[in-house]
């Protein structure tokens, strides 16, 4: 049986892993290579790196970080943040990323999704969607780190990018991100039920039951979390044991 994935997320800037609340207020969480190795040892199924650096100087740093991680950690690595062109996709894949995630640039230029998927295959193209609730049952796509409303409906946008060749959707609830109140389960289920590709739930995990709920109630194929792992509240292994005890198939 296909297991549900647990994906620790590392927000990287200036060569360090950081964590914010509702997309602002960053705290240092440590060295990316050391953190990646630790999660691999704990049994993480994949790792996601989001480059939240604004400058091009910082941008080259993540290539070196991915190179370092990929030479020591043999699980899938997804990298996103600042991916604007097919050439950016190539640079990240060449550095050792297995999947590349695009967000604002996909909204600005949906052909980027189609072009990158046609060239490199859907398996390595992830579209990240930052979703903000506008009213009950409705969510709007936001870009530029959650600052800019895109005027698009989240479920419609998810269906469009899947049709254009995205192999996976990384879905973040902006309302819940950093809140520790759990995933937006209605959002997650709405998107997961609407698309034929896997959906990663993100934003809001505060305890291990939230991970279970993301799968059983949100119908997510994978769950992503950052702070519960970074600050040592739980190990990935503890999360898997808890999920297995709730009847969720996980790789132990």
């Amino acid at each position, binding site marked *: 049986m296909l297991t549900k994935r647990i994906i620790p997320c590392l927000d990287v800037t200036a060569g360090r892993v950081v964590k914010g609340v509702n997309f602002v207020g960053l705290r240092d969480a440590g060295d990316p290579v050391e953190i990646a190795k630790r999660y691999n040892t704990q049994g993480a199924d994949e790792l996601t790196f989001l480059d939240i650096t604004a400058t091009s100087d910082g941008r080259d740093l993540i290539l070196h970080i991915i190179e370092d991680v990929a030479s020591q950690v043999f*699980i899938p690595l997804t990298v996103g943040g600042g991916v604007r062109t097919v050439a950016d996709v190539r640079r990240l894949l060449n550095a050792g990323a297995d999947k590349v995630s695009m967000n604002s640039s996909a909204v600005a230029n949906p052909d980027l999704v189609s072009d990158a998927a046609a060239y490199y295959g859907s398996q390595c193209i992830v579209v990240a969607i930052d979703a903000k609730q506008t009213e009950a049952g409705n969510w709007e796509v936001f870009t530029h780190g959650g600052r800019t409303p895109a005027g698009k409906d989240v479920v419609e946008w998810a269906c469009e990018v899947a049709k254009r060749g995205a192999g996976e959707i990384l879905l973040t609830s902006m309302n819940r991100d950093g809140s520790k109140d759990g995933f937006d389960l209605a959002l997650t289920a709405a998107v*997961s039920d609407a698309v034929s590709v896997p959906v990663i739930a993100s934003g809001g995990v505060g305890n291990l039951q939230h991970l279970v709920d993301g799968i*059983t109630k949100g119908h997510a*194929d994978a769950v992503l979390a950052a702070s519960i792992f970074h600050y040592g509240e739980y190990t990935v292994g503890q999360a898997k044991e808890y999920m297995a005890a709730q009847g969720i198939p996980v790789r132990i």
Partner: protein
Amino acid sequence: MAQTIAIVDYGMGNLRSVYQAFHHVAPDENVLIARKPEEIRNADRVVLPGQGAMPDCMKHLEESGLLEALLEASKSKPLLGVCVGEQMLFDRSAEVRPGERWTSCLGLISGEVRRFELAGKKQADGSAYKVPHMGWNQIRQDRQHPIWNGIPDLTSFYFVHSYYVVPQRAEDVVGSTEYGAWFTSAVARDNIFATQFHPEKSAEYGLKLYQNFVSWQP
């Protein structure tokens, strides 16, 4: 003397993770990314990775000038196919350019490549099956093989694919996986072994599989 392990580079996608994994398990061997026929001819072992769409993979392989050397190697040298590199070993694939029915492949293992047809089917937990089949899933070892040494039956490996192989001969099947139905996830015949999953992304036991390939004497 160090062996040479050639990873065939026909210009499709990224071979770095396969290279890194072999370099990690065989630091004393000469692991190289082969872009010239003689690099395949001079190698002791050959690895055929693959990603992206089958029609592009076959076209690039034919245009690379490496096809003949690869076919020669397939007759005698240990050859490992990975993902689309596994699928390429078969006769034909249903992953085609628009308007075509089949893409012709290498014909080294009898059988064909088909797409998952899981629309409308529900998983045990009530959720829909997604395609691509992406994530960690177990391999049932259908028969013994030196490449399985030290890897427990039903170990999970990492998959990401929308197509799967259907071998004609049952004896070529060495591993199977359940996703909606059982499909063949590893095949072997003579000096050839191939996996649908990605050992280079499958942590400890994936590295063990590559290590076993490095010492395999078919």
